[in-house]
């Protein structure tokens, strides 16, 4: 089994620090890919905060299953997934994934796959709070469609 580091937490995390630590792992790693999702303001710049609800228990389970699928399909040597829940401000890091592989194609594909599955299969729900009130973010058809790539 490769090292899977899966964290679901309310606390902020330091994306840069996590990237640095991840890339320093021992082993014959040649390629690291990371993704970071960041709270994006509305076009009008009116976002006060974002709140993420999740399903404790199922979240960890779903993320572990998704990471195990990625590890079964690609030659990856390590995988980290961190996802926050609770209230966040515009510009905050919401989540990250990181993959390490001897080969860049595997690191890219695994990270891309993790993100597609995480978006549509891990039980998180985003709510945007603006001066107009609170609104749940709608799932995009394109996110569900993205799964057919794999």
């Amino acid at each position, binding site marked *: 089994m490769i090292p899977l580091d899966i964290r679901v937490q309310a606390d902020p995390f330091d994306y840069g620090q996590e990237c640095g630590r991840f890339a320093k792992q021992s082993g014959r790693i040649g390629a690291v890919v990371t993704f970071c999702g960041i709270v994006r303001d509305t076009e009008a710049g009116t976002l006060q905060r974002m709140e993420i609800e999740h*399903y404790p228990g199922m979240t960890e389970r779903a993320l572990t299953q998704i990471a195990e699928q990625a590890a079964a399909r690609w030659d990856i040597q390590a995988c980290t997934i961190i996802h926050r829940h609770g209230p966040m401000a515009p510009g905050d890091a919401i989540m990250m994934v990181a993959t390490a592989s001897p080969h860049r194609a595997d690191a890219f594909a695994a990270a891309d796959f993790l993100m597609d599955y995480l978006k549509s299969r891990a*039980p*998180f729900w985003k*709510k945007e709070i603006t001066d107009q009130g609170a609104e*749940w973010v709608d*799932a995009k058809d394109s996110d569900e469609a993205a799964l057919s790539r794999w």
Partner: protein
Amino acid sequence: MKRDILYFAWLRERVGLPRETIETDATTVAELVSELAAREDRYALAFSDPGALRVALDQELTDFSAALGDAREIAFFPPMTGG
């Protein structure tokens, strides 16, 4: 049989609670949804478009046609929007 029913996101807000334990004879998810929708207006509203919902039995995603089996925890929620 006693089952824990969980609601998340706007479904939770419409139903008005995050979780409840109910006694039900439903054998499939679809039967359970019909039973819930018949309870009160807020449930009817919450479940008015089941195609827009997702369901998990004991924390595993499944379909509305699935048998409940001995699932203890049945969760309903809108499509996920993480990442």
